[in-house]
């Protein structure tokens, strides 16, 4: 039981600490923002409270000290300074370490914690005077969600209000900005047309306003007219509701508004034969139709408010262990497979009833699949704060001025993808700060803002998410790459490379152009690791760079890892799945085409020559070659490559299953999937397939060259 609480505590605290970090970084930009100070304080307070409850006293005591300082910041007696932010960030890291220690991590040197505490205390003018903050409780001192209150406002301006140059409409509009507002114009004082003076105001208004603001704020709206007008503000609170058994009674509203007295109500009630009180009251002449309308509107508004509260309660989120979601995804995967079988069976049965059921199941299955995959989607912005901190710390370490600008934080990605994306992104950002951006002096000399900028953006593009990491630095030094590639034997002097090929060499293992090794990057382990990590997420990475203007890394990632759209192809007896996202088109390849290309594995696709490889040859499959093969043209390794197969069967929603430990060394396969007929098909991983083919070709040409040399 305790473990379970502890685990929940840990999950919550990790979230709170990242909130804290975001808050602190915001404070650095806007030191006076009371909202942010409040957020920081609440995060600290909650960490302290829940750590105390669970019995992690070290965390609780330490956080208490930090909270004490922020209590003073909140009350305005201590100002936010760079030092305070620095110390609090250090304190945040200390809380994390303390927590890790509780969960079996490295024990903490108590002195380090004490140093932070002492430094924090030194920021406070006079320590003795500090009152202890509100004692540990789970509730934060300020409610997270401010409740709305409904007010009924009756605004009856003096008839000569226009003469004073005041427009009631403007007042009402201002009122409407305070919350959700229903305004009813009362027309019972409007005289007949021949008596009407167009310069006088005969109208008055009943306004039902649901707002988070208090009564004073409402009065402020009417500040210039309040003295001469008839302004009544009633708060419709829950006490009234409770008295009415959960529903606000019409009579109570009317009495509260002063439209009806208790006596009148009692009188009408006693003589009432009809079930509807409102109508009886109007008939009895004690209440006007308009007054009744207002009362009814108030009643409706209160009901809406209640429903809204209920909806908020219901929409509140629950915390679910991610393993549960994973098993749900697996189950849906199985369901998708079975559904495919059902559809296939139904197609062969010629039974309209069965077909109908199969279609219905198909529809439901897809809907369910979408919803479940959606549950696993998280906005990528949750990780952005981590990079803000990284940029802040790194720029100090390297003596560069850097700001991180992010966009598309709301872009959603599969949880697993986000988790596994963390390290590669950190590496890319480090790289941009270290290699990409110049020093402030160099930037100034080049006529740039001494403060460098790194843009990190995420956008949706079909079934993919595109991440961009862009810096406005000096760009990639092509000559340095060429030089380095030659010394490493990756390039021979006569080898021609185009620009894209050249700068993509930075993804080669062990490649680094920086002469000196910094603590940050430049050790030659880096870009290849990034590329590998992105590849393992079935994504791709590309780099483009303009000299003097900066470098852009573009990472393309699939939305989810669990299910992909696949293209089924057949080679001999075997069926394979190609990821549809990479496929561009399919073209026929006849024997004549092969002959006209002089038996080279090249095919002409609308004027462009595209190399292709035969899956039959790569996988050593036997069987007759069909007269007309199909070439699936796909994008792999940043180029167009064809894959020759016997037949293209069609699209298939592919639930990806791992091939497991025993086949982990097999290249060119990213997993397996189960087809409609229950058999297993292998999913091709295109980039490694192309890589292998390139390697083989190189070996082949090398050996031919050797033979020719020996022949000469």
């Amino acid at each position, binding site marked *: 039981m305790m473990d379970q609480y502890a685990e929940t505590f840990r999950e919550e605290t990790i979230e709170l600490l990242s909130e804290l970090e975001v808050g602190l970084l915001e404070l650095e930009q806007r030191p006076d923002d009371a909202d942010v100070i409040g957020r920081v304080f609440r995060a600290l307070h909650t960490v302290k409270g829940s750590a105390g409850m669970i019995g992690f006293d070290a965390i609780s005591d330490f956080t208490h000290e930090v909270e004490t300082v922020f209590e003073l910041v909140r009350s305005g007696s201590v100002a936010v300074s760079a030092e305070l932010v620095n110390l609090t960030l250090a304190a945040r890291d200390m809380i994390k370490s303390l927590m890790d220690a509780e969960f079996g991590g490295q024990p903490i040197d108590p002195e380090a914690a004490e140093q932070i505490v002492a430094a924090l205390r030194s920021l406070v003018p006079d320590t003795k005077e500090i009152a202890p903050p509100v004692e540990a409780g789970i509730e934060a001192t300020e409610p997270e969600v401010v409740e709305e209150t409904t007010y009924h406002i009756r605004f009856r301006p003096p008839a000569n209000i226009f003469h004073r140059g005041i427009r009631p409409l403007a007042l009402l509009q201002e009122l409407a900005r305070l919350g959700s507002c229903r305004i009813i114009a009362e027309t019972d004082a409007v005289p007949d047309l021949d008596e009407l003076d167009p310069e006088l105001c005969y109208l008055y208004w009943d306004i039902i306003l649901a707002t988070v603001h208090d009564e004073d704020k409402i009065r402020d709206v009417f500040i210039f007219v309040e003295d001469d007008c008839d302004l009544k503000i009633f708060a419709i609170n829950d006490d009234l509701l409770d008295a009415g058994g959960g529903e606000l009674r019409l009579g109570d509203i009317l009495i509260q508004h002063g439209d009806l007295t208790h006596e009148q109500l009692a009188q009408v009630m006693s003589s009432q034969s009809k079930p509807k009180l409102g109508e009886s009251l109007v008939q009895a002449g004690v209440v006007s139709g308009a007054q009744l309308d207002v009362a009814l509107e108030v009643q409706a508004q209160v009901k809406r408010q209640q429903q809204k509260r209920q909806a908020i309660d219901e929409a509140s989120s629950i915390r679910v262990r991610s393993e549960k979601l994973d098993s749900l995804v697996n189950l849906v*995967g199985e369901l998708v497979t079975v559904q495919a079988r059902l559809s296939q069976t139904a197609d062969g049965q010629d039974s309209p009833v069965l077909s109908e059921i199969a279609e219905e199941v198909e529809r439901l299955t897809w809907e369910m699949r979408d919803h479940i995959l959606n549950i696993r989607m998280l906005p990528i912005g949750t990780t952005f704060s981590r990079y803000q901190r990284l940029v802040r710390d790194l720029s100090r370490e390297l003596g560069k001025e850097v700001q991180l600008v992010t966009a598309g934080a709301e872009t959603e990605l599969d949880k697993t993808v986000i988790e596994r994306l963390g390290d590669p992104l950190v590496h890319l950002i480090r790289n941009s700060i270290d290699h990409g951006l110049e020093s402030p002096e160099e930037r100034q000399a080049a006529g740039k803002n001494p403060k460098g900028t790194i843009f990190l953006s995420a956008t949706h593009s079909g079934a993919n998410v595109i991440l961009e990491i862009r810096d406005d630095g000096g760009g990639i030094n092509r000559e340095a790459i060429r030089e380095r590639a030659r010394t490493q034997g990756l390039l021979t002097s006569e080898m021609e490379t185009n620009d894209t090929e050249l700068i993509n060499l930075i993804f080669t293992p062990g490649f680094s152009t920086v002469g000196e090794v910094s603590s940050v990057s430049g050790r030659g382990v880096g870009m290849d690791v990034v590329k590998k990590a992105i590849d393992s997420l079935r994504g791709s990475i590309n780099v483009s760079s303009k000299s003097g203007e900066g470098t852009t890394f573009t990472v393309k990632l699939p939305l989810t890892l669990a299910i992909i759209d696949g293209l089924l192809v057949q080679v001999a007896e075997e069926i394979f799945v190609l990821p549809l996202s990479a496929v561009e088109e399919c073209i026929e390849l006849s024997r004549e085409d092969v002959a006209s290309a002089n038996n080279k594995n090249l095919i002409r696709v609308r004027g462009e020559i595209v190399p292709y490889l035969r899956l039959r040859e790569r996988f050593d499959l036997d069987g007759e070659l069909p007269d007309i093969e199909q070439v699936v043209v796909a994008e792999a390794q940043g180029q167009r490559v064809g894959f020759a197969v016997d037949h293209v069967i069609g699209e298939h929603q592919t639930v990806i299953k791992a*091939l497991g430990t025993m086949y982990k060394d*097999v290249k060119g396969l990213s*997993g397996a999937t189960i087809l409609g007929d229950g058999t297993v098909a292998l999913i091709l991983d295109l980039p490694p397939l192309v890589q292998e083919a390139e390697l083989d070709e190189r070996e082949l040409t090398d050996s031919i060259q050797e033979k020719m040399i020996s022949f000469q």
Partner: protein
Amino acid sequence: MEYLTFKLDGDEFAVDVLKSREIVDLRSVTKVPQSPEFMLGVINLRGSVVPVIDLRLKFGMAKAETTQATSIVVMDVLVGGETIIVGTLVDSVEEVIELDESQIEPSPRIGTRLNTEFIKGMGKQGEQFLIILDIDRVFSSDELLIVQNAADPAASE
């Protein structure tokens, strides 16, 4: 302890019954390219993709024609600290028997045609000898590597 017994090339083998999950009929196996011959491929086991090993080939015996009796014994195998589910192709599944520790003798160093590392001991049931397998050892990663290296020259031909 209880053991599940099965036949391979005339010899009778036994594995700890707790290691075996289920016995399924031979079904369509998808061959995985670039893998050693004894690794037959993968099957669909109620929605999971499970690798299948031909134990005959793994033990260096001749490949056999499949018969009605040919079965796949699905087992939990510990490989490199991780339990994985593996199907093993056998000629026929026999029975589940009870054997006391006293009925098990250490394996002889010679005469079993098998790498003695795989063998836990020899059991005796009537006149028939039983070779009791340590199935984790059979699939130990080192062993797999050796086989793979041995198979590599053949694969690259």
